[in-house]
């Protein structure tokens, strides 16, 4: 059975003909060529496939694309600017050495993007708790926590500056 579906990924609409059993992560990688999202365990444990659906971090290996028709899907490819300039979160990962082999990194980036959007005032302890959902075998997590925390601090400072500027 082949199914016709319409997905919106990183703001772009795609019409696809896929088998219903194809999971979202396989559709992103094989049908759309968005190979930034990685396939790890395929049972929701490792988090390498984490993407955003309507802003919320989800496991792309644990859902079928037909379930997210009409939703706004974002992958790691949406973070950097079109000219390749990394976004602030990616720059923090680089500055803090929040990655070594890099396999888990897209998942951590999308997890952190979704989480910080919802909880901009997250504490380091809360960040530590949240990143426990994804597996990293290289870094020992410390640098990942520091990268996300640094990004959150910078975004808060920027927002404060904006608020101060608008009242001045």
């Amino acid at each position, binding site marked *: *059975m082949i*199914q016709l579906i319409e997905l919106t990924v990183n703001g772009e609409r795609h019409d696809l003909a896929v*088998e*219903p*059993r*194809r*999971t979202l992560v*396989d559709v992103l990688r094989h049908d759309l060529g968005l190979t930034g999202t990685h396939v790890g365990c*395929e*049972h*929701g444990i490792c*988090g390498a496939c*984490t993407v955003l*659906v309507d802003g*919320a*971090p*989800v*496991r792309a*290996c*644990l*859902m*079928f694309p*037909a*379930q997210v028709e009409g939703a706004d899907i974002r992958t790691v490819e949406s973070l950097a600017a079109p000219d390749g300039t990394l976004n602030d979160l990616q720059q923090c990962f680089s500055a803090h050495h929040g990655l070594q082999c890099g396999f888990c990194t897209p998942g951590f980036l999308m*997890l952190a993007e*979704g*989480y910080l959007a919802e909880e901009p005032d997250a504490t380091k302890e809360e960040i530590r*708790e*949240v990143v*426990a*959902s994804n597996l990293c075998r290289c870094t020992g997590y410390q640098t990942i926590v520091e990268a996300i925390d640094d990004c959150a601090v910078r975004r808060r400072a920027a927002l404060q500056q904006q608020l101060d500027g608008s009242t001045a």
Partner: protein
Amino acid sequence: MKPAAFSYHRAHSVAGAVGLLTELGEDAKVIAGGQSLVAMMNFRLARPEHLIDITHVDGLSGIRRDGAALHLGALVTHRAVERADLGPEFRVLSEAMAWVGHLPIRTRGTVGGSIAHSDATAEWCLLAVLLDARIVAEGPAGRREIAAGEFFLGPYTTALEPDELIVEIVFPRPAPRAALTEYADRKGDFAIVAAAVDLDAPGGPRVVLGGVAPTPVSVAPRTGAGSRSPGEIVAAAVEVRDEPGISAHYRRGLVRTLVDRAWAEAAAR
């Protein structure tokens, strides 16, 4: 691995989903958040021929107070409960969500799905039994309510008929002095033992345990006499299973510790 082939059916209403369940029979499975089902399908532990997707059904995502009771639609996510302000009466539910998997699981997983899945350590199954929840199911003959105490029949087995769909879970009474805690080797894993306590349950304090038997185990410990703690009393009273790697002795120790911990948390409210 990848799931085996299946046909996808999208339901647009509860009646439509029930119609599909009736038509497709026992080879059909309902999918909501899919956080347990898709993992099982990827492992090929589950190979449904038909999936009935209810995630596009309207009206099942509401959280609403009705007098003393709290109504949760079947498609309410764990994350929505975690972030909802349910007041002191039901904050035990919000707080317990921190134990359900991890954030990206909680953003998709649903209350109704967790109850229908009936894992022996699932937080929602424990909370439902602890707080005398009623599970509202719709079938071809209409709606009926099933008491949580009679709903969980075994691992992954419930009182739900194959053509019935859970539409709502009703928590009928406030539980201001209740708490849930658990232990797993890694945070977010299935609990080895989970313990939930409600000090204001009808008939006296109630303890519900997950992980000790195929379904949640409810105990009403007689405290007061003697110097034993509630955890010691419960640990001495329940049968716990023995399995390679996790002895009954170890599990009993966990029961004692976790019941005392949850009890103290509930009493401090």
